[in-house]
């Protein structure tokens, strides 16, 4: 393997090379080009898609500027979430406190937009300057008659995971004060889908066909009233478990709602998710309809996938994503395309996640926690991958190396969830891996030359 800094060695594992001891859940090394973000980022991405609430970032302008409409979470109605609201704290407030400005901002904000709720994100310095965000929120809540929820997301208070936690607590606070609306016998909440490129809509449509009621989706295409009555559902179906398991546990404890971890990515996982929900309700009608749905969808997409597979068989992929649960599904989905995963990593995976990844990956696969561009690019070179799956900061690294890329993060342009999403995923992988542009990449020239040299050595005719 490549040269790795001693402190990082424990966060990298090559299957087959040593006994499995991957350390994770630890803060990034100071001085690393980490691809990770902060607590605020975690809270912001989880709550962001709630479209009829206002999201006020309490702090200097940056945190609001960088999270302004960067997540493709679609709304079927109001789009308040796509605006950027900030208290834009300046030096005066840093010295004398920002509570007054927060109060004035919240009041102006609510007066202008009449939202269903307001979330107030406390950023790094808010804690340090001693603002009592809680009491300002309580005061405005009372005056305005809508929930005003503080989200304690000071960037340095942990990792992105702690931000997810803070977001879960904010969501939990909204629940219970319902204002009517009926909930059928087969009512579920979708947790951890953010309606990127309309994915929630695809999933909701499946449940509709199955005869299952979606009481709320947290938080894709999210609405405050739906979240408020979500406690009346009989099952929580949790995707993106890294962000939402905490909420599912709280709801289980408080309201006795059981939860199941699922993934809507790939054929098996989508089918299994739907079957799991159907089995939970154990209703013959629901089960029949689910079987019918899965059968017809798989029949519909399978021929196309096989065609993509013909072209892609034998290619190799690297995966570096935020949550590791997503990585499981990706490994399986790539297998349908005949693509082997040779590098897999995440920003926030835990021990069991990596243990599971080790089980499903082939010998020689590199498993890595919280990597950096230098490491990642060296692994990609060493393993000679044809495709990288990652987020915004990984894309240009792959491209510079002449390697195809698929965004499985905020910037996905096509829905990748469900059966339809699998087809989109195949199309996207195919379009990037097989792009004629790579013919012009010096990397491919070198590879081709290397291949020819090897062939000649072996006494075979170069093709």
């Amino acid at each position, binding site marked *: 393997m490549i040269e790795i800094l001693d*402190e990082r060695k424990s966060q990298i594992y090559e299957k087959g090379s040593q006994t499995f001891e991957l350390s994770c859940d630890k*803060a*990034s090394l*100071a*001085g*690393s*080009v*980490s691809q*990770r973000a*902060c*607590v*605020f980022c975690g809270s912001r991405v989880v709550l962001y898609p709630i479209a009829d609430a206002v999201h006020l970032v309490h*702090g200097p*302008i*940056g945190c609001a*500027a*960088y999270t*302004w*409409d*960067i997540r493709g979470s679609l709304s*079927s*109605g*109001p789009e*308040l979430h*796509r*605006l*950027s*609201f900030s*208290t*834009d*704290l*300046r030096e005066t407030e*840093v010295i004398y406190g920002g509570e007054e400005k*927060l109060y*004035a*901002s919240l009041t*102006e904000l609510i007066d*202008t937009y009449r939202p269903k709720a307001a979330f107030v994100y406390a950023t*790094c*310095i808010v*804690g*340090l300057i001693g603002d009592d965000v809680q009491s300002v929120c309580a005061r405005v809540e009372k005056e305005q008659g809508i929930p005003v929820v503080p989200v304690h997301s000071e*960037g*340095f*208070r942990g990792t992105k995971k702690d931000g997810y936690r803070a977001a879960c607590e904010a969501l939990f606070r909204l629940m219970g004060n319902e204002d009517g609306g009926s909930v059928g016998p087969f009512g579920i909440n979708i947790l951890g889908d953010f309606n990127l490129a*309309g994915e929630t809509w695809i999933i*909701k*449509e499946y449940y509709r066909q199955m005869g299952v009621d979606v009481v709320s989706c947290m938080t894709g295409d999210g609405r405050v009233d739906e979240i408020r009555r979500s406690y009346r559902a009989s099952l929580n179906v949790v995707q993106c478990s890294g962000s939402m398991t905490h909420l599912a546990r709280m709801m289980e404890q408080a309201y006795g709602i059981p939860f199941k971890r699922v993934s809507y990515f790939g054929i098996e996982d989508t089918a299994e998710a739907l079957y799991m929900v159907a089995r939970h309700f154990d209703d013959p009608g629901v089960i029949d309809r689910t079987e019918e749905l899965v059968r017809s969808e798989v029949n519909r997409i399978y021929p196309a996938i096989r065609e993509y597979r013909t072209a892609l068989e034998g290619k190799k992929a690297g995966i570096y994503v935020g949550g590791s649960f997503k990585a499981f599904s990706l490994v399986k989905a790539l297998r349908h395309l005949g693509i082997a995963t040779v590098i897999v990593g995440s920003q926030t995976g835990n021990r069991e996640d990596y243990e599971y990844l080790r089980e499903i990956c082939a010998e020689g696969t590199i498993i890595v926690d919280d990597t950096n*561009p*230098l490491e990642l*690019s060296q692994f990609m*070179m060493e393993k000679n991958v044809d495709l990288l799956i990652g987020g*915004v900061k990984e*894309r*240009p*690294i792959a*491209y*510079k190396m002449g390697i195809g890329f698929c965004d499985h993060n905020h910037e996905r342009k096509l829905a990748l969830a469900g059966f339809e999403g699998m087809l989109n995923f195949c199309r996207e992988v195919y379009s990037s891996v097989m792009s004629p542009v790579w013919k*012009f990449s*010096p990397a491919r020239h070198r590879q081709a030359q290397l291949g020819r040299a090897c062939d000649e050595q072996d006494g075979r005719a170069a093709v």
Partner: protein
Amino acid sequence: MQDATGLLKETIMILRHTPQQLADRSALTVNPAKTCQPVGAMYAALGIHGCLPHSHGSQGCCAYHRSALTRHYKDPVMATTSSFTEGASVFGGQANLIEAINNIFAIYDPEVIAVHTTCLSEVIGDDLPQIINKAQAEGKIPKGKRVIHTNTPSFKGSHVTGFASMTQSMVQYLAENTGTKLNQVNVIPGFVEPSDMTEIKRIVREMGLKSVVFPDTSGVVNGPLTGKFHMYPRGGTTVGEIRSTGDSRLTVALGKLASAAAAKLLDRKCKVPFEVLDLPIGLRGTDAFIDTLRKTGGVSVPESLMTQRGQVVDVITDMHQYFYGKKAALVGDPDHLTSLVQFLTDMDMEILYVVTGTPAGRKFEEGIRQYTGEKTVVEYGPGADMFRFHQLIKNERPDLIFGNSYVKYIARDEDIPLVRVGFPIYDRVGHQYFPVTGYRGALRLIEKILNVLLDRQDRDAPEESFELVM
């Protein structure tokens, strides 16, 4: 409107949330027309060859700035972070920074680490010079390598002043006066694109002068596909070149906000005289730059540049009927706005609104007014955000808008043509490779402006007056 899900979508586009009625806000910022200082410092630091920018704060800051710059350039952007934790926020970030410096030189081996602070480390009160000295004393900085720093609290200034501060720190840490004058001029290009930096270098070369342009991000964030990931691309001003700026004959600082501070410090520290000019955008902006070079170098302007200038005047002449009386609204960064406004008024356009979130000051406003007169609305600092800009537009409609990618919501909502210029541009390419500065840049701006205006005319013209020759 029915969408894919069959749900009835209310006809609310994002910015239909903006009411027309102007009302003063005392506190709230909606859709900012600026961002925070550190991202500007990070961008400036990328303009030093072999430099790794370092964000002294929480992990998120670094991730956000890298993402913003990556989206804007579609190129890898490398930077490290002190990864602040709860402990660091109580006991100070010294341990984190020293550990970071040690790790960075061990793993990434840069020539320079350029540290910038964040709101967090500023409020904690970390003393950066002291920490860097300590790292030096403890032998954490290898021989020949440099660690420089700048203070960029996010609650002051904007991304533009962050750029200015980091550029100033380059002078503070690296420039030296050896006592032997070199026959070269310094050019500080300001917070402009790598393409602009290339163009500025080219102009100086055409004038037959030697120069040090710093910072210089060309070849760093607009590099070619090589088949390899390069931690340190080929571009950037070298430490040696920046050191030599102390021996130059003159510094030309382009853009008051982004470049003047470094030029002034270079004068104080190394006795290099300076001139502060507006960005060389448009005819007169470029004229002023070239004239300054001409006088300094005692050279004459070469035929090649005169020809390009003539071409700009020629195109404006050919098409001036399309510019006359067109109303423009601009939002962006102060240095760009000043030069753009001058250029647009030279082309007989009328300026309705000029808005920047950067607290640019009274002088900025006066600078704009010398070209536009009193009736133009000029707003800057707190309250001058895109929401405000949108409200102004709703009150008197311009024919075209200039701004960054975030202006596209307004342009779509109001159905007004948009010329993308400024930072950030997330949804188009071109800014990395084609300048808006110099005469060539002026030509490009003219082309962009005409394209949107004439496309609009073509789109809206009734069939009988749909023209072939324009």
